[in-house]
């Protein structure tokens, strides 16, 4: 879910996460390794086929 930044997100445990990015992507699937921010862990996964390389940020 995209939200215009900057944002302060109050998590379930009461901690506050802050981001001043112009837009932030909030995790709604709870699979993110950097919750509450999205890390694309929601993506569909497939059995290995000849897959494109993906190494350049």
């Amino acid at each position: 879910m995209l939200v215009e930044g900057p944002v302060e997100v109050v998590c379930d445990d009461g901690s506050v996460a802050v981001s001043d990015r112009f837009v932030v992507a909030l995790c709604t699937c709870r699979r993110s390794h950097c919750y509450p921010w999205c890390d694309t862990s929601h993506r569909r996964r497939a059995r290995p086929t000849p897959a494109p390389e993906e190494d350049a940020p």
Partner: protein
Amino acid sequence: MPPRPGDRPRLPRPQGKLSTAVLSALSSPSTPTPLSPFPHSPLPSLRTPGPDPLLAPTGAEIQQADPYGADLQLALYVLYELHYQGFDGVDDDREWDPALLAVRRALEEVFLRALRADVPSVGAAEALDGLLVEPVADDGTSVSHHLLRAGRLWQLREYAALRSLYHLKEADPHAWVIPRLRGRAKAGMVAVEFDEFGAGRAEDIHAQLFADLMADLGLETAYGHYLDLAPAEALATVTLMSLFGLHRSLRGALVGHFATVEVTSSPAARRLADAMRRTGAGPAAERFYDEHVEADAVHEQVVRREVVDGLLTDEPGLEPDVAFGIAATVHLEDRLAAHLLDAWRHDRTALRTPLAVTGER
């Protein structure tokens, strides 16, 4: 004397006839280039002072060159670099030397023709959808999976050294497309680029974060320092962006390239961040990739929804170009990955010559 940060890089060593011609022309004392009479020959000679004018490569020699080989790629890389930071001892005005531009054009045609012949023809939407699917497990073709699982510190250092050709000018090649876009595509592109360039904070420019990573790994952080060590496969991934960025006619391909980078970056960056943690590379090394996990999860959405969709709404005829940009990027990244994994699985350096152990060459 080694270059200090901020200095211009030195010209690299040539890798064959084409790059020798280009580098010799650039290392000769610069002479004012007469704009009139404009050279009539399709490939005007590269002028050098003295009794033995250097022969420019002929059109036939360029046509016969390996489009992905080190010689052509280095010649192209050096000519493009005149549009970025230039080189020590090379006059800034050589950027617009008609003789050099003519040679560049001929090199570009060979490279582009090879790419168009070698990449699959798939629609842009289908190509992007394909990039959005993650493999369940390491399929043996992914550098980030390899580095996460089995990467050794020397391999991470080699990876950083060759990626520094791009990351020390990260997002620069894409900035050229901005005046060629309109509306949503332009606004989205500028927003993402603003983030890439540190959102107003010099210390957060992604190129600076990468220099910090390199320092953690004991590498030289000067711009262009590792050009001599880069294999042809690494050069090609960077010449591609400059080719797309510098040609307005390839603005669709540039957007396709940018979308590919942003869509594929986040999962790979997470693996690379974990690889840096596992090998104890250092906090700045971890930070560069951690930042890209989070940033590119956002950039990916903005690029697909605003930049790609905005461009194709504005100029629907560019759809094949966007698709070509995606396919060409994947093609060259695959070639680089195959080169790296082959070298590392055989415990060999993936660079032209190995890095010194201490990090100082």
